[in-house]
C-alpha cells in the first residue's frame, strides 16, 4: 500500500511488519517520532508487542537484551548521546549474539549541542560487532528494517539501521508499504537456539578463560563474514518478493567513469544529481553509495573501483587526527588492488552537525578532483580557515 511517510515512520512500519514483540526505548530528538509511532501502534492494538518505558537508553538496550535473551524479537531506536550511553550494552548485545535491530537517526555529538545530522555517533560503534546499514530513502528504510531482522536472526548478530537526521528522518516520501502477508512469508517467527528457560537454568555470557575467549570472538568474526553473503541472499529474496532490492553497494554511472564520489546516506542522492550535471559538462563522473558498512563489502568495492582514476570519499564524520572514517576504510580496502588498478583516493569532510551538502558543493568537489585541484589527502569542505596570524600565534605558543 502506498503511503506518504517520513523516514522515522518508515522505520516504525518496518518494525510493525516484522512483528517485533518487545520495544524498549527512550525518547531523543530526532529519533523520538519512531517510538511515538510504535507506541501508537501498540496502544491501538495494531502491533502485538510489549512497549517498555525506561529511564535511559542504557536501560532501553538492557531491556531489549533481556527480552531477546528470552527469545523475543526486539527493537529499539536512539540517536547521538543516547547511542553513546548504550555503548557498554552495544558490546554486550553483539557478544551475546542477540539479533537485535536498532534504528539510529544520525545526530551530531555534543558539545556543542546539535540535533542535526552527522555520522560520528554510529561510526563510534564501528568496532562493537554490530552490523551497520546506512539508508538513503524512506522506501529503503522500510525494506531494510525487515531485511535486517532476517539477516540478524540467521547469523545471530545485531543490526543498526542508520538514517540521517531530518534529511531522511523527517522528510516525507511516497513509500510502498509491503503487505503483512508477504512479510510473514519472508520473515518466520524468531526461534533462538539458546534462550533463557526457567526449566533449563544456565549462565549466559559467563566467565570465559583465556583458553576460550578468543574462540568466541572468532565466531563473531566468522558470523560477520557469513553475513555478507546472507545480506546478498536476503536482499535478492526480498527483490523477488516485492520487486525492490538494493545490494550492499549502489553503483551509479560507473561506465567509463574517471572520477567517482563515494559516500553513504542521503548525500548519495544529492550526489547523483551532481554526477548527472558533470556528465552534461563532459566530465566522466560516477558515484558509489556504501549501504552496508559492517560487515564491510571490501571485495565488492574492489571490483567496482578497480581501474578507476580517482575516488573522492565524502565523509559526514571524522576520526580526529586522521581521516574521515569511510575514507580510511575505502583506502585500506583498495590497497589490496595491484598498483596499476588502484585509484587515487581523496577525502572530503563535509556537512558535520547538519550543515547542508548541496548539489553545487558536490559538483564543485567532483570538478576540482577531476582537474587535480582537490588537496590530498583530506579537504575540510566549506569551513572557515585559520587566518595567517592565528596560525602564527598557535605555532609561537
Amino acid at each position, binding site marked *: 500500500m502506498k503511503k506518504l511517510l517520513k523516514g522515522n515512520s518508515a522505520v516504525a512500519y518496518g518494525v510493525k511488519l516484522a512483528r517485533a514483540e518487545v520495544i524498549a526505548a527512550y525518547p531523543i530528538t530526532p529519533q523520538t517520532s519512531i517510538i511515538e509511532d510504535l507506541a501508537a501502534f501498540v496502544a491501538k492494538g495494531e502491533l502485538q508487542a510489549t512497549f517498555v518505558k525506561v529511564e535511559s537508553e542504557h536501560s532501553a538496550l538492557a531491556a531489549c537484551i533481556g527480552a531477546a535473551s528470552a527469545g523475543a524479537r526486539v527493537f529499539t531506536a536512539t540517536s547521538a548521546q543516547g547511542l553513546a550511553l548504550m555503548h557498554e550494552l552495544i558490546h554486550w548485545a553483539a557478544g551475546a549474539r542477540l539479533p537485535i535491530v536498532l534504528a539510529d537517526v544520525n545526530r551530531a555529538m555534543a558539545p556543542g549541542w546539535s540535533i542535526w545530522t552527522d555520522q560520528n555517533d554510529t561510526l563510534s560503534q564501528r568496532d562493537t560487532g554490530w552490523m551497520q546499514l546506512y539508508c538513503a530513502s524512506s522506501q529503503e528504510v522500510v525494506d531494510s528494517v525487515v531485511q535486517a531482522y532476517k539477516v540478524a536472526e540467521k547469523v545471530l548478530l545485531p543490526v543498526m539501521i542508520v538514517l540521517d537526521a531530518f534529511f531522511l528522518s523527517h522528510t516525507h516520501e511516497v513509500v510502498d508499504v509491503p503487505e503483512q502477508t508477504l512479510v510473514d512469508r519472508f520473515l518466520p517467527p524468531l526461534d533462538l537456539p539458546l534462550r533463557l528457560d526457567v526449566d533449563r*537454568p544456565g*549462565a549466559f555470557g559467563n566467565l*570465559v578463560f583465556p583458553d576460550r575467549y578468543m574462540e568466541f570472538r572468532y*565466531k563473531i568474526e566468522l558470523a560477520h563474514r557469513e553475513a555478507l553473503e546472507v545480506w546478498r541472499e536476503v536482499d535478492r529474496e526480498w527483490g523477488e518478493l516485492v520487486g525492490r532490492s538494493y545490494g550492499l553497494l549502489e553503483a551509479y554511472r560507473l561506465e567509463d567513469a574517471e572520477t567517482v564520489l563515494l559516500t553513504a546516506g542521503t548525500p548519495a542522492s544529492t550526489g547523483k544529481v551532481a554526477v548527472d550535471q558533470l556528465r552534461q559538462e563532459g566530465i566522466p563522473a560516477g558515484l558509489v553509495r556504501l549501504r552496508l558498512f559492517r560487515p564491510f563489502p571490501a571485495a565488492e568495492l574492489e571490483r567496482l573501483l578497480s581501474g578507476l582514476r580517482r575516488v573522492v570519499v565524502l565523509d559526514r564524520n571524522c576520526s580526529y587526527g586522521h581521516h574521515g572514517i569511510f575514507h580510511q576504510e575505502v583506502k585500506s580496502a583498495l590497497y589490496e588492488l595491484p598498483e596499476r588498478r588502484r585509484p587515487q583516493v581523496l577525502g572530503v569532510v563535509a556537512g558535520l552537525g547538519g550543515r547542508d551538502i548541496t548539489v553545487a558543493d558536490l559538483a564543485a568537489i567532483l570538478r576540482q578532483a577531476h582537474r587535480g585541484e582537490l588537496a590530498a589527502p583530506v579537504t575540510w569542505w566549506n569551513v572557515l580557515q585559520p587566518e595567517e596570524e592565528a596560525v602564527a600565534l598557535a605555532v609561537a605558543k
Partner: protein
Amino acid sequence: MATQARLRDLPYLPFSDKPTTNIKTGTWKYVEPVYENALPPCAHACPAGNDISFFLLTLAKGDVLGAARWLRQRNPIPATLGRVCPHPCEGPCNRAWLGGAIAVHMVERFLGDVAGDVIPAPAPETGKKVAIVGAGPAGLAAAYNLRLAGHHVEVFDDKPAPGGYLRTGIPEYRLPRAVLDREVDLIAQLGVVFRQKVRVGREVSFEELRDSFDAVIVAVGLHRSRALGIPGENHPQVYNGVKLLEQLLAGERPELPQRMAVVGGGNTAMDVARSLLRVGVAPVVVYRRTRAEMPAIAAEVEDAMAEGIPFEFLAAPVRVVVEQGRIVGLACQRMTLGEPDASGRRRPVPVPGSEFVLPCGGVVTALGEVTDWEGLPGELAADSRQVTAIPGVFLAGDVADGAGTVTAAVGSGIRVAQVVDSYLRSSELPAQAPRVQALWPRRVNVDRVVEFSRLNLAYLRSLPRPPIPHRPVEERIGSFVEVVEGWSEQQAIAEARRCIECGTCNECSNCLYFCPDVAIHRADGGFVVDREHCKGCGICVEECPRDALTLREVVR
C-alpha cells in the same frame, strides 16, 4: 586422554549450565541490604504508639482476630480511641498523596469492636502492688499494662464508674456507653481492681496509698473549668461546661434557658453545644478567634456546623447582661487577629468601640480545664519520664504533659507503666522516657521514619479513600445516637489493603525478582540476603516499594 578441541563444539555464545555460586561475589561489596522494618509516619505520629501498619497488614491478610489482638497488645481502649481520637496518624499518612490517607480510625474502631479472645494473658504475678489515682484513659492504660506485666493494680476514682472524662465529658453520640463499658470490663477481667466513688483525700489519704502500695500513679486529669473573669458570671444561669456536660451525659435533664451562649473553641465547647442541641436548647458558640485557630478536633467542628449550630467568631465576652434577675444576653467585644502569640496562633486584639450584645438566656463556659489538686500533696510535677520528686510516685495523662487528647493520655499511661514496671522489678528508673514504638513485640528501627520520597511510586497506584458514613443530621438532633457509623468487616479489610505498609515487608517479592545476582532467597516469613554473593548493588533497596530494606556499610 586429551581430546582434540573443535570450534564447532563450542556454543555460539558463552553459556554454562553449571552454577556460578562458587564465585563468592559477596566480597566485592562495601554496602549491603538489610531487611529492617522502619517506622511508618502514622505510628510515628500516634500519641499512643499504636503499631498501625502491622495491624492493618494482619487485617489485610484476613486475620481479623489477630489484628484485634495486635492492636490490644498495649492499648486497652481501641474501640474508644477509634471513635474519639482526632487521628493525627492520618495527617502524615503517605497514602494521602495516592488517593487519600488511610482511614485508620475507622479500622481501629472496627478492630476495637471485635469480640472474642482479644486480650493478652498477664505475666506471672510479681507480688508488687500499684495504686492508680484516676480511672480516665491514662489510668486505664497504665492499669492495663501494669496488670499485663503481672502486678496487682487498684484504681481509685471518685466517679460512680471508670472512664474519667470518657464517661463524664464525651457525649454518647461520639462514644456510646456500651463501647466504653465493654473496654472497662475487659480491663477488670484481667484482674484490675476498680475502687469507684473513692476520692483520694476523702475516703482514703494519699499517704495511705503510699504505705499500702509499692508505687502510686496520679492520673487525675483536668476537670476544673477556668473562670470567665467577667461581671455577672456568678449568675445561676452561667454554667460550668464540664459540670453541665457531666449532668447531661449522666442522663439528667435540668431546666435550661431556650438559647445559650457556649464560650470557648475547644472540644468541651463542641461537646457542650452539640449536647445542648440534643436536649432542645439552641446553642451559639462564642469564640474570640476564628475557625482556623480553634483547638477543637476539626471533624467535631465540621459536624457541629453541619448540625446547624451558629458560631460567633472573633467575639470575646465582656459582661453577662442581666435584667430583672434574668440573663438576657452576653455582651461581647469584637476582636481582630494580631501577631502570633506563644502558642503560634494569632493573638486576638479588641476592636475599639465594637461591643455588642448577643441575646441569650444562659451562658456556658468551656474555656479549658485545670487540675484539681485537692487531696493530693500539692501540685505535683514530673520529668519527661513521668517521675515525681516523691519516691514511688508517678504522673500520667494530662497532669503529666497536658497533651489534652485521650490518645496522648493512653500513650502516657503505657509509658508510665513501663517506667513503673522497671522501678518495681529492679528499683531502678530508666535513664530516659521510653517510646511506646520501641516496646512493640516486632523489631522496628524507630529512628528511621519512612518519608514519602523513600517509596517507589512505580509500584503504587492511587486508590481513593472511601467515604466515612455519617448518620443524617435530622436523625442526630434530638437524640444521642452515634453520629459516625461503623464499617463492615469487608470495608475494614478493603481499607487495610489500601495501606502501603510503609517500612514493613509484606512479602511483595520485588527484592527477590530484581536481585541480579539471585542473592535473595525466601525464608520463613520473609527473605534473607545471601551475603556470600550479594554485591551490594542496592537494586533491592531501590525496588522495594515501601522502604522495608536499607543499605548498611560493610565494615571489615
